[in-house]
């Protein structure tokens, strides 16, 4: 939907779309540039190649107004960069999924757009193909050097491919920023949930020091120290405190935020173990900690066994509690 609005295929109800200083849409003045005047490259989910045209003709499509030698030169260069040389005369149905995607990219890049929009280009592919294409996309991005807007439902994919992340839910932008910042300091509970921070607890601020906040977490029956410099936090303010499951350490020597717990469930994943742990001091009967540990460092702990966990202060984040769960 967002991409459709940016590309001009859909008309938003209100707002403004500005690209490199050019106003593409302005709800207040009624300005709505048609897609062909926007200089936007769009790679559709299923690539939407022209099935009746060859690879060469597909890539040419957006630049036929240029002088012939230049078209030839540019298409050749793109096909070369996309490793499609030799396939010029094939039709899309004669290509593999990866080749089709590269044709779609070449076609979108040929008119030298100001921004490249990618609409979940990997969603229909199986894992090995997806991984190879991701690598190719990164290489192509280095060649394109322009901005790429990539829409995906897969957090891991978004994180691997991007430098900046925007979290959108039901058409609302919840947070935008450097990908590290979005992951380590989610702006609210929804972002935390959507970005996979599985451990979220309600808490009350006990102490605020420079660069450190102490939060009482009734559910865990613990006081946690978070190494955050959250501005505007006040004593006795209710907050959400959380930690990503892969940040929790097991069997620590010493340190802050150590708690004892019982493994309620242990899941043997491909790359690591997932433990559902109930803190010994917990006020609830269900598990209240989810821990992801790589197999290389973690032992297999069968359910029922006790364990010691550490929640490193620098990986805990604190969100002022103003958003409902």
């Amino acid at each position, binding site marked *: 939907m967002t991409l459709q609005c940016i590309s001009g295929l859909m008309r938003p109800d209100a707002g403004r779309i500005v690209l490199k200083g050019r106003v593409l849409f302005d709800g207040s003045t009624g300005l709505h540039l048609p*897609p*062909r005047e926007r200089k936007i490259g769009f790679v559709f989910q299923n690539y*939407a*190649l*022209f099935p009746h045209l060859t690879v060469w003709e597909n890539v040419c499509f*957006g630049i036929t107004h240029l002088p012939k030698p230049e078209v030839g030169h540019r298409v050749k260069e793109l096909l070369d960069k996309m490793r499609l040389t030799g396939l010029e005369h094939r039709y899309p149905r004669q290509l593999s999924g990866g080749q089709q995607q590269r044709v779609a990219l070449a*076609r979108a890049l040929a008119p030298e757009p100001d921004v490249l929009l990618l609409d979940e280009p990997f969603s229909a592919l199986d894992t090995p193909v997806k991984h190879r294409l991701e690598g190719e996309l990164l290489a192509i991005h280095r060649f394109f050097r322009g901005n790429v807007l990539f829409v995906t439902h897969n957090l891991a994919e978004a994180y691997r491919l991007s430098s900046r992340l925007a979290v959108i839910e039901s058409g609302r932008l919840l947070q935008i920023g450097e990908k590290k910042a979005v992951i380590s300091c989610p702006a609210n509970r929804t972002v935390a949930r959507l970005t996979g921070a599985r451990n979220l607890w309600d808490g009350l601020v006990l102490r605020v020091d420079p660069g450190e906040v102490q939060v009482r977490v009734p559910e865990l029956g613990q006081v946690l120290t978070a190494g955050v410099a959250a501005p505007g936090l006040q004593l006795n303010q209710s907050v959400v405190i959380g930690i990503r499951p892969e940040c929790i350490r097991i069997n620590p020597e010493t340190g802050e935020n150590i708690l004892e717990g019982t493994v309620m469930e242990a899941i043997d994943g491909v790359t690591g173990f997932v433990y559902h742990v109930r803190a010994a001091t917990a006020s609830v009967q269900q598990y209240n900690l989810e821990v992801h540990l790589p197999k290389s460092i973690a032992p297999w702990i069968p359910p029922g066994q006790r364990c010691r966990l550490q929640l490193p202060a620098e990986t805990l984040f604190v969100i002022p509690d103003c958003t409902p769960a």
Partner: protein
Amino acid sequence: MTNCLPGFDASPVWLSLQTAFTATIITFFWGIAAARWLVGYQGRGKSFIDGIFTLPLVLPPTVIGFGLLLLFGKNGPLGSLLLHLGASVVFSWPATVIAATVVAFPLMYQTARGAFEQIEANIENAARTLGASEWTIFWRVTLPLAWPGIAAGTVLAFSRALGEFGATLMLAGNIPGKTQTIPMAIYFAVDAGKTGQALAWVAVIVSISLGVIVTLNYWKRRQGDGGARLAAEGGIKSVAGRGQKILSRLYVGSQFFRR
């Protein structure tokens, strides 16, 4: 040809072919234009307009002929206008073309519309983001992708125009050498008890129709294994499939309603 068989007038063959070809050419352009227009039409009464366009397919040809007679007759709105200009349509060769065009139009229109609707919206959207105007998109993307369906519609329209009887009889009458097409000649030969002559005409029209269908099948098969430009990938295959489905459905329909 006229003299190959003594006492056998071949003029209905030429009249039929001329009429069918002219009617096919007219429905080709108007059918595509109407289909394209209605596919993009967002306003009210879409299904009503579709109904009007399709009506000649489901109405008995005599009703259509009667309607055309009212329209083009001396006192009809179009007829009086033409009379004013010194032309009369009823019981002339153009009348056979008008009747054939009207009954063949829905077949062209419906098949073309199905073909246009089958084209995946994102293929046209991709062309839009690549800077193409709507006109360019129609000529370079939509029309080539809809081509199998349009071709099927053309063949159907031609067959229907060739076999037209009821509306032609009402509007153009049965004037040998002027408006007497093959179906007309068959009816009046049987009526006059000239069974042999009727059988000869039947043989002619069966071979023309069979020839058209066999050619179409041959073309479809070549398209199937040749893998040439026309039958590329999923999008267009489904267009062809849809075209064939409509073709068979409408063909049954047209057979049923003919006469």
